[in-house]
């Protein structure tokens, strides 16, 4: 048999890659082997374009228990416990079939966490869609949110927060990034290794069907108008099966009968057997006829490449098989012995005794191709980074009141209640900060501690400057966690980009990774793992470069937790950090002028670090009553949000003027809606405000009393003149119902 060009293309392999395969095997691969190579060498599994850049990320720290390379990362949270967490994308499947695509994304990330021996305790998500009023967006949003809810609610893990953004660049390519956090005993973290010659390899969970064949390859290609034909490559989720697997696997891990375990995610049986063998320096031999099959007549090729969901691969110590089988039986799961660990380092697949594939593990994993792809600074940056403030003219809507209401009603800023009330965010009875109130916060029962989590990204900033945009994403995620009172401990990243074979995209990628690395080093949050999603393009249009950062932080005393809302009248409102009226890339500029231009806000990482440390200290000493990070929509939106969910409590605020242009209206807008980084609005009682200001001064953080909580209106003066005067009830109605109203409208 010779392999023709068409067959290679169908497998997403390049002619040079075939030569490499032939060199490894000393012969041409058969079809099954070609399929195995194609998924293991796909961008999704091999990280062949991104690996050289990812190596530069900081991954070490005294708190890191598990860095990148395992199913998930882990950090030490004291009391002998570990926080195990990871973020992953399911963009391509969610575009083709939003409900199942999102649902199986949730299922996959949950498996990554319990595979490490951790009980999952919280889910988060970061979603990007085209403009909400554009055709097709509502269908996608509705399906994705229902899919996340359908899976997470059923399995009983609370979805405690996240973010949703709308930009035209995601219209043909929505982003669905899902994050899961679990808790394990630090000493009991389980790894995905196969070792010990003769140990049994077990398959447990759902039967293997023809669904999802070549899912990993699909996730490594661009979309076009024929993408809907790829629907069979999307898997179907069964959260009940996963719930049984979760409980049964955690029970099996209580015994020491287990050597290693891995879920069958992307590239299914192929990936789990080769990765486990490779990590353990061993080989794995399986008999494909023993694999439980949902359909008859499946070929070895199909069985090896199926991405049927809710399946696990286990390596069990010799002589302990009975114990493990009994536990799975209790949960009505059938654990099947399909092979054993060997000493020769090969993945060997047999079908009814005949060898159908025989490949050195190393060739599929460590020796997968690595590309240092060409990069080029994209030409568009020259244009979009310039912003002529003097030439902007009068904005629409013109007045600050109207502009603030318009921002509060913009789907990017408006309350996401429509989505999160579809998620069970309270199951497990640990949720201390409800969604929408800041970082997600879950207590750790039996310890007095809590964990705070935030996932953040800003595609618009990264489009304007990928390096700075990525740094800002790290800073914001850490700041959100610090605003809850938690010390950021570690981060996970999900890197969503276009086609890496285009030099401009590869440049964006490299710049963003550099930015993440620099910010993580400065803020002391190592990257413990993550995921890269490339080829996010449809018909040649790439998404905004969108790194999404998930950060986990620790609250030593759970009862010190803070949220965004003001707590009562008569409190002093203090602004920490300094604003420079930066409008580049802002929501205001987009809304009032339809522009995505300028440079994103500047970021001083030293200033950011001391601000975050100050936040943790103020919370620990119980000196403040609320804290809210200033981001999209600037200070005015931040202040309005501080007033929401308080039964109508208002505030009287006075801000300094900023001068960015000759036009006065624009200067006021810059003071209100500029998105300068490293700022937090806190509130405190009058007797503690001096102490707050003193601590800020000692830390070197600019701090100023900007007003107090009072009445039922939000009044904001800039340089002494009142420019905003809104009833909280009215503003909150606009903010809280904007997205629901879009769905309430009849679809034309």
């Amino acid at each position: 048999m010779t392999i023709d060009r068409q067959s290679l293309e169908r497998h997403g392999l390049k002619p040079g890659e075939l030569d490499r395969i032939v060199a490894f095997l000393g012969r041409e691969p058969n079809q099954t082997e070609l399929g195995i190579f194609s998924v293991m060498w796909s961008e999704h599994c091999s990280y062949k374009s991104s690996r050289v850049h990812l190596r530069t990320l900081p991954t070490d720290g005294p708190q890191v228990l598990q860095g990148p390379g395992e199913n998930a990362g882990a950090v030490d949270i004291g009391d002998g416990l570990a926080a195990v967490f990871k973020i992953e994308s399911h963009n391509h499947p969610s575009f083709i079939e939003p409900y199942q695509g999102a649902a199986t994304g949730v299922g996959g990330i949950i498996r990554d966490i319990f595979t490490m021996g951790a009980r999952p305790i919280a889910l988060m998500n970061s979603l990007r869609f085209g403009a909400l009023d554009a055709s097709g967006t509502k269908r996608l949003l509705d399906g994705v949110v229902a899919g996340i809810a359908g899976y997470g609610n059923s399995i009983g893990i609370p979805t405690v927060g996240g973010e949703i953004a709308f930009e035209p660049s995601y219209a043909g390519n929505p982003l669905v990034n899902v994050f899961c956090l679990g808790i394990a005993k630090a000493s009991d973290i389980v790894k995905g290794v196969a070792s010990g010659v003769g140990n049994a390899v077990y398959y447990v969970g759902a039967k293997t069907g023809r669904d999802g064949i070549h899912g990993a390859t699909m996730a490594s290609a661009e979309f076009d108008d024929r993408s809907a034909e790829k629907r069979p490559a999307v898997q179907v989720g069964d959260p009940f099966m996963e719930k049984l697997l979760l409980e049964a696997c955690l029970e099996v891990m209580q015994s020491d009968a287990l050597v290693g375990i891995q879920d069958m995610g992307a590239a299914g049986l192929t990936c789990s057997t080769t990765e486990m063998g490779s990590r353990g320096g061993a080989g794995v031999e399986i008999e494909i006829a023993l694999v439980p099959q949902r359909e008859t007549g499946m070929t070895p090729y199909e069985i090896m490449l199926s991405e049927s969901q809710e399946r696990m691969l286990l390596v069990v110590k010799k002589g302990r098989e009975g114990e493990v089988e009994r536990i799975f039986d209790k949960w009505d799961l059938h654990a099947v012995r399909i092979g054993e660990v060997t000493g020769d380092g090969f993945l060997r697949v047999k079908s009814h005794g005949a060898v159908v594939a025989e490949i050195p593990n190393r060739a599929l994993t460590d020796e997968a191709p690595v590309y240092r792809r060409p990069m080029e600074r994209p030409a568009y940056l020259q244009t979009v980074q310039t912003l002529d403030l003097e030439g902007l003219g009068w904005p629409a809507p013109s007045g600050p009141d109207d502009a603030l209401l318009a921002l509060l009603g913009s789907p990017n800023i408006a309350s996401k209640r429509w989505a999160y009330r579809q998620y069970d965010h309270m199951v497990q009875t640990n949720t201390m900060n409800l969604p929408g109130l800041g970082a997600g916060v879950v207590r750790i029962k039996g310890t007095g501690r809590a964990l705070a989590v935030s996932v953040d990204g800003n595609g618009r900033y990264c489009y304007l400057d990928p390096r700075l945009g990525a740094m800002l994403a790290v800073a914001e995620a850490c700041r959100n966690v610090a605003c809850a009172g938690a010390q950021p401990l570690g981060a996970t990243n999900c890197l969503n980009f276009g086609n890496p074979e285009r030099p401009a995209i590869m440049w964006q990628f490299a710049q963003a990774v550099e930015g993440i690395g620099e910010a993580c080093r400065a803020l002391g949050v190592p990257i413990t793992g993550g995921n890269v999603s490339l080829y996010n393009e449809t018909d040649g249009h790439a998404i905004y470069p969108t790194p999404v950062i998930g950060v986990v932080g620790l609250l030593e005393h759970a009862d010190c937790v803070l949220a965004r809302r003001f707590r009562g009248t008569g409190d002093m409102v203090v602004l920490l950090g300094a604003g420079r009226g930066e409008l580049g890339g802002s929501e205001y500029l987009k809304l009032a002028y339809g522009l995505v231009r300028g440079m994103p806000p500047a970021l001083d990482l030293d200033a950011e670090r001391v601000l975050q440390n100050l936040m943790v200290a103020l919370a620990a000493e119980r000196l403040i009553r609320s804290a809210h990070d200033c981001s999209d929509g600037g200070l005015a939106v931040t202040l309005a949000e501080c007033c929401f969910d308080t039964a109508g409590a208002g505030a009287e605020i006075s801000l300094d003027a900023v001068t960015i242009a000759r036009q006065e209206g624009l200067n006021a807008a810059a003071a209100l809606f500029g998105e300068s980084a490293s700022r937090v609005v806190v509130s405190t009682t009058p007797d503690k405000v001096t102490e707050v200001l003193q601590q800020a001064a000692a830390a070197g953080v600019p701090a100023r009393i900007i007003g107090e909580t009072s009445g039922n209106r939000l009044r904001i003066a800039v340089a002494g003149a009142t420019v905003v005067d809104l009833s909280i009830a009215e503003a909150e109605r606009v903010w809280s119902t904007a997205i629901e109203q879009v769905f309430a409208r009849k679809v034309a």
Partner: protein
Amino acid sequence: MKFGVIVFPGSNCDRDADHAATQVLGQASELIWHKDTDLKGADAVILPGGFAHGDYLRTGAMARFSPIMREVMAFADRGGPVLGICNGFQILLESGLLPGAMLRNRGLKYRCEHVHVRVEQTDTPFTCGAEAGQVLRIPIGHGEGNYFAPPDVLQMLEANRQVVLRYTAPDGQLVDDANPNGSVHAIAGICNERRNVVGMMPHPERACEPALGGVDGLVILESIVKAFATA
């Protein structure tokens, strides 16, 4: 006293109920696997929330066939207190321990949020610590909580004072906006004729610690202990 919390495959509020019983109430509690055939000496039984057996058919439809349900029914027949929360309520309906059925929420979407419920009856083991008319702020989390019963059954429920909890506004007024799922007569919870079996959609175990933002659910759980002490 001792609580028995039934664990069906797919239950996911079992540990929450167990935590509330032991850590909040300071009582004994045991998780009881659905294949077990005795209640391990429990003085009160909780059927917790979740998606028993996946709920791919009708919610609760398969759980009634779990071996432990035979014991739960015998326990209820003897007058033992049984509380079904959310999925547990659905299971009580399917097993015939309570009348009526659940439909999908009228908005057709799962809803998780705090709601207000008014205590209508205080002569059950799960509301005996509450005041009649007391309004509780307790979370719900369900996609099928739209209680339905035919007119004659409703009439009987009302005549026998079997409606235990109703969705209301925070001030206790019956308004349609306060009904999160479209339940007939704004029903959030009912009891059987003998009043020892109660099913409710809201989750009291999610509202019994200040750290979780409210303690209004505590009165439901404390009622059980009170009822046991005075029995």
